[in-house]
C-alpha cells in the first residue's frame, strides 16, 4: 500500500477513535450524536429485523431502476446531441446550468402524475442522473479521434458495429465517469424523495426513526447506507484503475 493510503487509514481511524472517546467522555450530547460503537450495534440490530431489510430492498430496487434508465437514456441523448451540432449548441447553456435547478421540487408533480408508489422516486432519481450521463457521453464523443471513425468506414462496419466495436470502447473512460455519477445521483435523488414523502425505503425509515427519537436505529441505518455507497464507489474506482492499467494509461 502507498504511503498516502496508510496515512489515510490512520486519519480515518483517528477521527473515529476521537469521536468514540468524545462520546464516552460525555463531551458530546448523547441525544445528538451517539458513539461509533453504538452506531455499529444499531446497524447490526437493524439488519436483523425483517422490516428494515424490506426498506433496504425497496430502496435498492428503486435506485437500480433509476440508474439503469438514466444510463441508457443519457447515453442515447448524448449520441443524438453529438449528431446534431446546431441543436446541441442551442441546448448547451441549458445542460450546463441543469444542476443548478433543484430537480426534486418536481417530486410532488410526479406523485400526482404516477400516484404515491415507487415510480415518482424512480423519476426523480432518473432526472437527477440522466443529464450527468449525457454530458459525460458528449465529452467522450468530442474527444474521439476522427481517425477511428474513418477506420470504421474503411472497414465498412455497420452503424451498430461501429457503435459497439469502436465508439463505446474508445469512450469507455468517460462512460465510466458517467456510470459513477449515475450511481451517486440516483441514490441522492431516490433517498431525497423518500425523505420528503414516501411510505417505505431507507430515507423513510431514517426520517421515521428520527421522528420517534430512535437514535440507535437512525444512526444504524445511516451507517449502513454510507458504508454501502462508499463500498460501491470504491469498487467502481478500483475497477476503473484496472481498466486504465490495461489500456496503458488514458
Amino acid at each position: 500500500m502507498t504511503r498516502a493510503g496508510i496515512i489515510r487509514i490512520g486519519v480515518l481511524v483517528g477521527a473515529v477513535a476521537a469521536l468514540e472517546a468524545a462520546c464516552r467522555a460525555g463531551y458530546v450530547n448523547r441525544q445528538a450524536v451517539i458513539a461509533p460503537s453504538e452506531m455499529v450495534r444499531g446497524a447490526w440490530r437493524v439488519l436483523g429485523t425483517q422490516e428494515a431489510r424490506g426498506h433496504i430492498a425497496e430502496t435498492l430496487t428503486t435506485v437500480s431502476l433509476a440508474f439503469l434508465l438514466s444510463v441508457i437514456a443519457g447515453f442515447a441523448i448524448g449520441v443524438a446531441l453529438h449528431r446534431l451540432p446546431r441543436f446541441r449548441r442551442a441546448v448547451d447553456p441549458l445542460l450546463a446550468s441543469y444542476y443548478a435547478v433543484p430537480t426534486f421540487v418536481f417530486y410532488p408533480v410526479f406523485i400526482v402524475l404516477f400516484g404515491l408508489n415507487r415510480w415518482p422516486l424512480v423519476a426523480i432519481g432518473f432526472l437527477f442522473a440522466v443529464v450527468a450521463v449525457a454530458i459525460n457521453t458528449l465529452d467522450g464523443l468530442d474527444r474521439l479521434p476522427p481517425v477511428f471513425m474513418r477506420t470504421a468506414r474503411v472497414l465498412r462496419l455497420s452503424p451498430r458495429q461501429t457503435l459497439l466495436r469502436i465508439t463505446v470502447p474508445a469512450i469507455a473512460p468517460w462512460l465510466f465517469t458517467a456510470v459513477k455519477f449515475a450511481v451517486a445521483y440516483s441514490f441522492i435523488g431516490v433517498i431525497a424523495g423518500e425523505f420528503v414523502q414516501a411510505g417505505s425505503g431507507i430515507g423513510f425509515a431514517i426520517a421515521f426513526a428520527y421522528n420517534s427519537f430512535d437514535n440507535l436505529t437512525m444512526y444504524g441505518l445511516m451507517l449502513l447506507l454510507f458504508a454501502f455507497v462508499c463500498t460501491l464507489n470504491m469498487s467502481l474506482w478500483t475497477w476503473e484503475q484496472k481498466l486504465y492499467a490495461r489500456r496503458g494509461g488514458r
Partner: protein
Amino acid sequence: MRAAADVDVPVPASPPAVRRAGRLGDSALVLLGLLALWQFGSWVVGAAVLPAPAATLAKLWAIMSSSDFGGHAWETGRAFLSALAIAFAAGLAIGLLLGAHRLSAEVAEPILVALYAIPKITLYPIILLLFGLGISAKIAFGVIHGIVPVAVFTMAAVRNIRPVYLRAARAMRLTPVQTAGRIMLPAALPGIVSGLRIGFSLTLLGTLIGEMFASQRGIGYLLVKAMETNDVATVVALATLLIVVATIVSGALLALNRRLDRSPKPGR
C-alpha cells in the same frame, strides 16, 4: 434561378457577432420549444396535474405580490448567501492548503470524493440535532453541500499549476501569503471558478432542502407547505422561479468561466 446562398462554394466564415446572434436565436428557439412542450403536456395530463405556462406565470405573480413573500424570499436569500460565503471561504482555504502539499492532497482526495458521493440529505437529522430548528441549520445544510466541490476543484486546480511558476515564486523569494495571492490564485483561477459554479448550485440545493425540513420560513418552506396541501399550481410556480434564478446565475458564472479559460496564458 438559384439564390446566391445555394451555390455550392465554401461560405466565408461569418463574423463572431453574427455567429453569436445565430446561437442566441437557436437557444431562443429551444426555449420556445420547451414552453410549447410544457403547454402540450399540460393539455395532455390536465391543468390539475401540470398547470399551463401562462397560468403558472399568473400564479407566480400572485405569490410574489403577496405581502409575506418578501419576508420568505429575504429569509432564503440571507441563509443562502451566508452558506455560500462560508462554503466558498472554507472550501477555498481547504483546497489551497491541500493542493499546495502533495502528500496531503493524495491522502485527502478519496475521502473528499467519497463525501461528495454520499446522499447528504441523510444527515439532516444530525444537523437538526446539532443546530436546532432555524436559520443556522439551513446554513449548515447549505454549507455541507457546497463545501466539498469547491475544495475538490480548488485542490485539483492548484495541483495542476505548472511547477515553473512556483519555482519562479521561490526565486523571487515571495512569502507564502504572497505566493498564494499572486501566483497560485491567478494560475488556478479557471479551475476554481468551475468549482465555485458547482458549489453555487449545490449550496442552493442544500439550503432549499434544509428549509423544507427545518424551517417555518423561506421559499423551501412555502414549497413543502404547498406539497403537503397538494397545491400543484404553487409548487410549479415556485419551481419555475427557482429554475429561472438558478439558470441566470449559473449562466453568468459559466460565461465568466469560459472567458477565464480563453484568456491568454503566458508561457504556453
